[in-house]
């Protein structure tokens, strides 16, 4: 068994939050609120630390001339540009027009473009998978092909039929598989949480 201090903390916090959820009590509510605020502060601190760590890491890469210099320059310049736009004297923070321009004109289109490229790269990967003669990959590609046909945006009776079949595939077989996976994940999460709270490690098995 591990030392119970962290597990005990998890149990106490969990029980407090559950009790607050079930019982109307002002003191309990204030304690739960304090815990939630603490979680928010920790999350915000972790996010800031992650950005600082990324900037420091890439800055060090640049100074020591190691790794990918182009990537390092882009990361450092990107963080710097956004920080200057939002934090310069007189700026309006995240709502500043300069920040909005950077987001609307650069960040969002570039991000969407990267996802758009997935269309080409996924087609290439699917093609290579079929040519590799892997049976599972071939089955996957056959299903993908059928899905693409079902998504064709035709009007009229043909289009209505395609959309009807497409809706059925989403709501019946695919939903059934997803639900099975989710139920499995939920059971494993519950087991893992119980083991954590009880301080049971793999060595105890």
């Amino acid at each position, binding site marked *: 068994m591990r030392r119970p201090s962290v597990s005990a903390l998890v149990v106490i916090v969990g029980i407090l939050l559950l009790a607050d959820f079930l019982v109307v009590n002002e003191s309990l509510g204030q304690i739960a609120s304090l815990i*939630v605020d603490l979680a928010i502060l920790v999350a915000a601190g972790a*996010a800031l630390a992650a950005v600082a760590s990324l900037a420091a890491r890439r800055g060090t890469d640049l100074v020591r001339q190691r790794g990918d210099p182009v990537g390092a320059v882009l990361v450092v310049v990107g963080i710097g540009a956004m920080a200057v736009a939002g934090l310069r004297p007189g700026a309006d923070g995240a*709502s500043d027009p300069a920040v*909005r321009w950077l987001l609307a004109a650069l960040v*969002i289109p570039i991000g969407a473009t990267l996802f758009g490229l997935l269309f080409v790269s996924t087609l290439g990967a699917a093609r290579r998978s079929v040519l590799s003669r892997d049976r599972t990959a071939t089955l996957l590609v056959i299903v993908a*092909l059928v899905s*693409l046909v079902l998504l*064709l945006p035709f009007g009229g009776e043909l289009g209505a039929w395609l959309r009807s079949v497409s809706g059925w595939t989403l709501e019946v077989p695919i939903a059934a598989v997803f639900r099975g996976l989710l139920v499995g994940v939920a059971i494993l999460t519950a087991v893992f949480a119980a083991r954590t709270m009880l301080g049971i490690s793999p060595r105890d098995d």
Partner: protein
Amino acid sequence: MGLLLRAAPLGLLLLLSVGWLLPQPSGLTLAARASDIALRVEATLDAMPESPVVVVGFDPDIGTYPEIRPAVRALLADLLEREARLVLVNVTPEGRALLLAEIGRLRASSERAVMVDLGFVAGAEAALVALSRTAPAPDAPVALRAQLAADGIAAADLIVVVGGNEIGPRTWVEQVLPRVDQLPLVAISPTVLLPELLPYVESGQVDALIGTPGDGAAYRESVASTPGAAADDRLVDRLALLLGLLVGIAVLGQALGERILPGLRIGGRGERA
């Protein structure tokens, strides 16, 4: 043949460009079967009181947002047309970035719109729990500010969730709805989330879900006659979509055909290797 394969992405881009530039043919549509989704959304919105307070949890992903953007813009325009007071909040940085762009567009298109921006709240699920207790809104009109401070999200008449992979309708159902006395919830999410969200729709926890581009197109068509709604956004280019899908079908079909009938092979040994 190798040159042809290398030039294929450029050819695809040219083809899609042609699809964007040509007029949209009338025989193509994205609208889903029947428009029961649109009817459910409209019924939920119709049940709201006059000048309702609508909390909008806006946390889509940059990658999947283009899929739901037309429906999101139509819904926001529809809500503003109903004189809803929008209380906007993000708990993800990506959602914040996308919302800032949308706020600028909405303010430019509707000067009389009442929009209260709660900003980005760190903590994801913990942030939602905190907001269900109290939602500080220093820039809100006095009465609404007091309501939000006292009751948090429960001060709203409706919750609208624009979801992504990280935070979406499921998180709101789990973290917020039990704490705010089951407010009505309308959600818009990318198709990839649909299978996990359908149980919440069937159980009534999500009152209406626009979960596919087809549902979005159907809803958009239903509000097309509403002044201001959906008028200022570019429609999804059906011809470009059709051409892209046909290219996908052709590439995958050729690969499968090559597997079955070697005579269809266009790649050569190098590619197979």
